[in-house]
């Protein structure tokens, strides 16, 4: 068979075809609301965040200190054994400088970019990271390997949520910029 000689389906429309009602359409806003049970591990994780602490869970078989905490070890396939507080400091494993919001809308020219990062938390097993945001740092100064510390909401504002940590900020002044290619962000 030869795709070039086949008549292929798929009728392209332009966005203006929708705006000018050249085709019939119907709209729907589904009501997809949930109340997910936190369970033991995430319930405790959130409760500790409210107190300004990060808690992990330890498996005595593989000796991993796991973050986010979990009641079972997915590798040893057995219950985890104990709780362990970890630090609210860590190391930037990787990061991005985001100019796009979650719905693909662009951030305005006056809005600062978002700086999501994977942060390896001190006290947890090496490589155990969580996704969070960076703040109080110039985008050009962010580097992989940078040491950071959590900036918490005021205790009275915390609700028991991952957003009780506002962001992570550099512990020391960032290292001088490396001259890697394409570092303009």
């Amino acid at each position: 068979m030869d795709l070039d000689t086949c008549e292929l389906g798929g009728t392209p429309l332009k966005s203006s075809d929708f705006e000018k009602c050249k085709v019939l359409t119907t709209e729907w806003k589904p009501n997809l609301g949930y109340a997910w049970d936190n369970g033991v591990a995430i319930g405790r994780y959130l409760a500790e965040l409210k107190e300004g602490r990060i808690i992990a869970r330890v498996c005595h078989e593989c000796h991993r200190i796991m973050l986010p905490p979990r009641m079972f070890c997915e590798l040893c396939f057995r219950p985890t054994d104990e709780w362990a507080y970890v630090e609210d400091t860590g190391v930037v494993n990787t990061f991005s400088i985001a100019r796009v919001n979650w719905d693909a809308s662009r951030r305005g020219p006056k809005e600062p970019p978002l700086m999501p990062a994977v942060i390896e938390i001190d006290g947890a097993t090496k490589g155990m990271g969580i996704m969070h945001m960076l703040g109080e740092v110039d985008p050009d100064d962010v580097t992989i390997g940078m040491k950071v510390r959590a900036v918490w909401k005021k205790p009275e504002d915390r609700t028991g949520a991952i957003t009780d940590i506002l962001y992570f900020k550099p512990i020391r002044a960032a290292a001088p910029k490396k001259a890697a290619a394409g570092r303009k962000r």
Partner: protein
Amino acid sequence: MVKRVGIVGIGTTGFRPITPDVSYREMIFEAARKAYTDAGIEPSEIGGFITAAEDFLEGYSICDEYCPDQIGAVLKPTQTIPGDFIQALATGYMMIMTGAFKTVAIEAHSKASNVKNIDELMGFAFDPVYNRPLRETPHAIAGLEMTRYMFETCTSAEQCAKVVVKNKANAMRNPYAAFGAEISERDVMNSDPISLPLHRLDIAPHADGAVVAVLADGETALALTDMPIWIEGLGWCTDTPTLEMRDWGEAAYARIAAEMAYKMAGIANPAGMIDFAEICDEYSYKELQHMEALKLARPGEAAHLLESGVTSFAGDIPINVSGGALGVGHLFEASGAHKILELVEQLRGEAGARQIPDVNIGLAQVWRGVPTATGAVAILSNM
């Protein structure tokens, strides 16, 4: 060549209307750990994994992401079947029959209590152009079907109510069941009208819970256990999704799936060969309609078999001794999982107070619910 596939381990949490003390991960881990312990196998030794789940029931855009950890499937060949557990069971069966997998674990669960408005979610499955804009309750589709079924088979709403009475009473003997009750047919008929002839008690309430089963090829199965429960027949079928083109009286999807399963199992006379069955009773009339589709009753005969006690716990072909969805709870994609669980426990002789004596062949059948015309059938034996 692989000749047979057996179930060598099964585990469950049981079923409750709500499960606020555990996350879905913790709930599923419990069922998985029990299944692997039951099978005497560790997940690291299992060849492949399947989860039966639909995104919007989980509340994720891509729920497949969250399937591996709690079943021990990290870095393992793992997939989601957005369908009922029995369809996942069919995939697991085929995987083993290829010869490329010796063992496959299959998981299904329900956290229906976490969905704020489950009726509206079911309505989101309607055709967006022809049906959904009417904003009709999804139960109305069952109401339409019930009217037509009753008309074609001369069955009454009171007879359908007797299914509810039987199944909720059966559930009283089942420690896994969430909705056991002693009620009368009048209680059903007096419950709120939802979409007549359907009343509130004709509709299975939803429940939470998880089931995990482990499959193995014949040789491996016999090495792992003295009593594998063999998969003798499987069938699955989808009739038209177009409601307007549907044959409203007959459950063709169940008939065709059953024909496929009977052929595979070499069963020519289902009513004579099947010792007991767990069949879909998400709505009361569905048990009767499905009995006929499965050829466990002739067209129009199901209600009479029910009334004469043939399908009761002590009858010739007990149907839904577990309590069915009406007594255990509707479990969405885990519906088939609960039925397979019941078959395995019965065929192993481990069903306790609800054990049916001397059973060798059981049948499980599911329907994927409104607005689908999809169903699956599994036939298991202990011989």
